[in-house]
């Protein structure tokens, strides 16, 4: 029975009837439509739903609405005073403290309650204060900086502008190379940014999934009779009701059904879908569906799964459960090892980690009466979802519109089509109502697509002077039940090793093995962080063996510009040497290495990644990124339409900067419409760190097309030859006499008046024929590669084994940084995410394959308190294939982190941990083992 609640929200009294079981979050979002407070974990772990209750921060997901009776609630919507932003909002925007924005409202409100109590906090107090608000994007550093700035603002002080050195390649540029706040930050800081779960459509109903409770079984029968009779239940779908077309991510491995057909392969496999008037009814219906399973033996360990006679997940394919097999040999490793003076081989084991974007996956589907469907979804890859839906629904692309709303982080978890996207459409079609489907946190883990756990045997041979002569890697990737990105992950695990150091001879054997566990996919760094962790660890071990400094051995072998690697990857710009020198200096490496007291250690790791995959996921001739620009008739603004997705990394801003630079206008004259298949031209989306280079090139090209038309128009007005003119800072000016100019908008308006719409279009495809001709040569190709070096300093509690990461010094070669503040944001985010993976994260299963830590309470990710001091520098570099010389920073920034920490821990405790995560328990065991010897 509903109860009346008197509640004051943002100064307005409300009398509302609520169900006793409704939370304050439900009341705010569903009844008052105040969607600034977000659903993140729903269990009080993430803080995305933080609001102030009588001035104190609370998790509104853990407060009953009835318990808020008589209280004063403050939500993000009330923080700004009309047009005037609150100083906290201003500081968050200016300091780059906002990426995906999903944690932002909660973070800002927590900051408010904290500063209300403690207006002049110390740095440590800030770190401690924000531990209840998890952020997966920013690495917290810019948030701390923002909080410190607020303190200044509240004291009436304006902070000094950060002095930073322009990169050489950005000196002559006006918009590119500048530390500019993200254009979407004000909306995210004020709770106005709309994420998919914030949308409610008229007559909308909800959908939920029935997941398999058993790891491996035949489905004998499903009875939905009882469930259908429940009041409020609209539609129930099972495997028999849906298409036989299978889907997945990589075309050679489409092995997933929309709903399980006759078999389930892991605890969490999707058996049925229900649509009903609300989620609660869906859950009740799900409980009433009766499924009879015939259980089959299951296998959870990849090494067991490969053995003859092991239970098989697929009867018709993947013999011995080997889903992907890679057998690569470049050069002559036998000869290479024969030439080596020192050879060492070790086994390294990775961990099964999950991306954990703070925003869960959500999809809403709505059909119109003309046979067209619109899907709102939190995705990284509008086009691939579009393409896959077209296949599965057997509809032309034109009958499907896919809209990415704001996306609250992805890191690979949202880089493919998921069942919510498909099933919401099917349920909407059958019910005639719009359908919203969302994962809760546990369902996110079970949908999976996190990092493959890898078992790596790595062997490196070197000369006395440290020169690498040969490398051999054998990797077994535990893949879970389905393929997802796995074929590509397996190739990546091998192909990226030779990009950082000169490896003349290289052999790679890769096996991806199916197990009865949630499917693994592409997580930040896709397949490569574990091999990189292994390589960076082993290289440092070898350096110790031959008495060489860890940075020196890297310098000895460091990749140089314009190199073709042994596996036929073409490296153009490369400043790895400069990165190494930079971090050596900034970290005072020479003064510290080998000289720190016991329990304190310093370590180096290097990394790098593709700036976009050289080939699309499915075969097509479409340019990979495309853009159009439409200039307002009076020339006052330009709108960039681009298919690539801003999932928080800031691509809308970065692409607008590239377009603005090309057109000669300032950033505030730009707005961006992105990732909407009806409005924006195709873009492959945010994966493989491709958007800055590819979307940037397309946006720049579109901008240049506009610029050329503006120049023509201006030439007529100014009565000068076009070649004598240029554009810059909203002006068209005479090159030799810059005092002679007309406003940019005047030329643009004249164009519109005489020739009609002023539009530009641009497209980008990677150079043709990238890579070699061997099988799998496409994976690892890219127009450009990033490079980075990181030094890490840690303190290890020798009695408890606890690691505290104190400092990170990172130097990154991302070519020209289009927006250095965004680059730092990526590096800081990657450091903290990488630290979290290295020290804490691991999925744990019981003996029946049930995930035991599918939440943010038992699966620990780094909080603000773990954040080290991060010193992030960008080295001078110019990539001719990138827009204004730019290349990637997103995933590459993760790569050096794991190895750097492992090496620092080894330096601190004198023992090598080769298995992730590096937990206190493993450290203690290693120390004890060493003492025994």
């Amino acid at each position, binding site marked *: *029975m509903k*109860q009346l609640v008197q509640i004051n929200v943002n100064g307005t009294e409300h009398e509302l009837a609520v*169900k*006793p*079981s*409704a*939370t304050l979050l439900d009341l705010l979002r569903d009844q008052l439509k105040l969607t600034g407070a977000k659903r993140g974990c*729903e*269990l*009080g*772990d993430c*803080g995305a739903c*933080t609001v102030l*209750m009588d001035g*104190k*921060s*609370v*998790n509104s997901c*853990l*407060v*009953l609405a*009835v*318990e808020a*009776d008589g209280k004063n609630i403050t939500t993000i919507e009330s923080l700004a005073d009309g047009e005037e932003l609150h100083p906290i909002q201003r500081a968050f925007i200016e300091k780059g403290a906002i990426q995906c924005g999903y944690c932002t409202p909660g973070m800002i409100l*927590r900051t408010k*309650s*904290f500063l209300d109590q403690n207006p002049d906090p110390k740095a440590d107090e800030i770190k*401690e*204060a924000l*531990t*209840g*608000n998890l952020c997966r994007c920013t690495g917290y550093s810019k948030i701390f900086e923002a909080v410190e700035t607020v303190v200044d603002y509240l004291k009436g002080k304006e902070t000094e502008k950060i002095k930073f050195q322009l990169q050489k390649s950005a000196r002559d540029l006006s918009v590119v190379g500048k530390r500019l706040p993200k254009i979407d930050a004000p909306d995210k800081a004020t709770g106005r940014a709309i994420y998919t779960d914030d949308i409610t459509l008229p007559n909308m109903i909800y959908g939920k999934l029935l997941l398999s409770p058993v790891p491996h079984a035949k489905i004998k029968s499903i009875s939905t009779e009882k469930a259908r009779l429940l009041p409020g239940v609209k539609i129930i779908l099972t495997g028999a009701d849906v298409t036989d077309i299978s889907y997945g991510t990589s075309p050679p491995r489409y092995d997933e059904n929309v709903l399980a057909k006759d078999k389930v392969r892991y605890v969490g496999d999707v058996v049925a879908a229900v649509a009903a008037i609300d*989620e*609660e009814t869906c*859950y009740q219906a799900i409980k009433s569906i009766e499924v009879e399973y015939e259980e089959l033996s299951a296998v959870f360990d990849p090494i067991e799964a490969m053995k003859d006679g092991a239970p098989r997940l697929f009867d018709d394919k993947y013999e011995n459960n080997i889903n992907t097999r890679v057998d690569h040999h470049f050069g002559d490793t036998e000869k290479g090892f024969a030439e080596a003076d020192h050879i060492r081989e070790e086994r390294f084991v990775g961990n099964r980690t999950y991306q954990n974007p703070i925003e869960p996956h959500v999809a809403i589907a709505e059909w119109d009466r003309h046979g067209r469907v619109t899907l709102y979804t939190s995705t990284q890859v509008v086009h691939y979802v579009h393409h896959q839906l077209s296949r599965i629904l057997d509809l032309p692309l034109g009958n499907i519109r896919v809209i990415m709303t704001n996306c609250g982080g992805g890191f690979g978890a949202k880089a493919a089509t998921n069942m919510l996207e498909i099933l919401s459409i099917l349920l909407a079609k059958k019910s005639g109502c719009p359908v919203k489907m969302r994962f*809760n*946190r*546990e369902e996110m883990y079970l949908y999976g697509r996190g990092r493959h756990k890898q078992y790596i045997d790595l062997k490196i041979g070197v000369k006395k002077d440290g020169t690498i002569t040969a490398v051999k890697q054998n990797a077994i990737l535990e893949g879970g039940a389905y393929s997802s990105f796995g074929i590509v992950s397996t190739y990546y695990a091998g192909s990226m090793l030779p990009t950082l150091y000169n490896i003349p001879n290289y052999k790679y054997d890769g096996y991806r093995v199916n197990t009865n566990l949630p499917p693994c996919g592409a997580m930040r760094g896709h397949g490569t962080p574990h091999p990189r962790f292994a390589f960076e660890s082993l290289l440092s071990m070898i350096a110790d063996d031959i008495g060489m400094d860890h940075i020196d051995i890297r310098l000895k072998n460091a990749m140089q510009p314009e190199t073709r690697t042994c596996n036929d990857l073409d490296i153009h710009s490369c400043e790895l040497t400069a990165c190494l020198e930079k971090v050596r200096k900034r970290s005072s490496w020479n003064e510290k290495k080998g000289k720190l007291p016991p329990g304190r250690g310093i370590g180096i790791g290097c990394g790098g990644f593709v700036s976009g995959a050289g080939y699309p996921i499915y075969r097509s001739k479409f340019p990979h990124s495309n853009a159009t620009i439409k200039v307002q008739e009076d020339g006052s603004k330009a709108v960039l339409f681009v298919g690539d997705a801003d999932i928080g990394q800031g691509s809308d801003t970065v692409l607008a900067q590239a377009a603005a630079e090309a057109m000669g206008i300032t950033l505030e004259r730009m707005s961006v419409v992105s990732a909407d298949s009806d409005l924006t031209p195709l873009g492959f989306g945010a994966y493989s760190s491709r958007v800055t280079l590819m979307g940037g090139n397309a946006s720049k090209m579109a901008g240049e097309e506009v610029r050329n038309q503006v120049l023509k128009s201006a030439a007529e007005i100014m009565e000068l030859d076009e070649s004598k003119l240029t554009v810059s800072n909203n002006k068209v000016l005479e090159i030799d006499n810059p005092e002679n100019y007309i406003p940019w908008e005047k030329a643009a308006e004249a164009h519109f008046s005489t020739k009609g719409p002023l539009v530009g279009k641009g497209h980008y495809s990677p150079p043709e024929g990238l890579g070699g001709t061997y099988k799998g040569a496409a994976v690892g190709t890219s127009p450009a590669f990033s490079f980075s070096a990181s030094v890490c300093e840690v303190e290890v509690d020798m*009695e*408890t084994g*606890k690691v*505290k990461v104190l400092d990170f010094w990172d130097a990154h070669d991302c070519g020209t940084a289009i927006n250095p503040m965004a680059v730092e944001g990526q590096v800081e985010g990657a450091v903290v995410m990488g630290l979290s993976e290295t020290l*804490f994260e691991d999925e*744990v299963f019981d003996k029946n394959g049930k995930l*035991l*830590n599918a939440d943010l*309470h*038992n699966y*620990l990710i*780094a*909080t*603000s*308190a*773990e954040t080290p001091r991060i010193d992030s520098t960008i080295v001078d570099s110019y990539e001719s294939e990138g827009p204004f010389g730019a290349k990637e920073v997103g995933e590459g920034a993760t790569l050096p982190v794991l190895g750097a920490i492992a090496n620092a821990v080894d330096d601190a405790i004198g023992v090598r941990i080769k298995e992730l995560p590096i*937990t*206190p*328990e493993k450290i*203690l065991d290693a120390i004890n083992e060493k003492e025994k010897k």
Partner: protein
Amino acid sequence: MYLKDFTYHKPQNLEEACKILEQSKNGAVIAGGTDILVEIKKGLRYNDNIISLMAIEELRVIDEDTDALHIGSGVTHNEVKNSSLIIKKFPAIVEAASKIGTDQIRNTGTIGGNLCTGASCCDMAPVLISHNASVEISSSTKQRIVSVKDFFIFHKKTSLKRGEIMTKIIVPKVNSSTGYCFEKFGLREAASISVASLSVMIKVVNNNCADSCVVIGAVAPTPKISIKASEVLYGIDISKLSKNSSVLRKAGEAAEADSLPLDDIRGTAYFRRNTVKVLAQRAILKAVIRASNLKI
């Protein structure tokens, strides 16, 4: 994720609360809700009647009399943390409260709730046991006092009987020559469940340990007193207690010997035992310093 519907009650006084609880078939009391709502959402429990203690003012009071500190069971962790009375006289209780969860959790979660959940890793229990604290428990017919030590029966099982509500925590006043220290080990810096926790009380008279109590948490089915460790300390010359002294090592080993941990997701039994040993040594040293300072 959702909460299955229930009937909600908001009694205005304790008597009414006890009555409703007694009469409901499957009722539960809610204070901050930070544990119970999570359990309901996860489907680990269901209660058809939820009885809120929010309106009962007497449960939300911190005060003292000549003998003891009284903390209402509905006092939040942050109210404990920020209470000038507790900060001044019971700093170790503040230490424990401030290490629970996050600010958001501490603003709603209550000291009574923390104890009544009955978890072996309950952070407030060791420090309260080392203070020889008791809890007051009421039902519609009677009131009883039970020591915190005896309140815990097994993991997630307390001495609360059907129809009973914990109303306050009674902490005896601290003797001037006594020092306390709470230590906790979680896998990350903040917002983590204890792998092991430990609280120490040491009374120092004439440089000798005149009384001692070592309480271990998260390493046995309930938080409990390590009798062996307490005995090791009793009567020792505290000037002999230094970082690597044999007495301290022995005390740590004694605490370890009294623990009976399980392997779980946060660590193996072996690791937990080791952790408790380390925590014991650290906490004892700090407690001794505090006891000595108090004396001066």
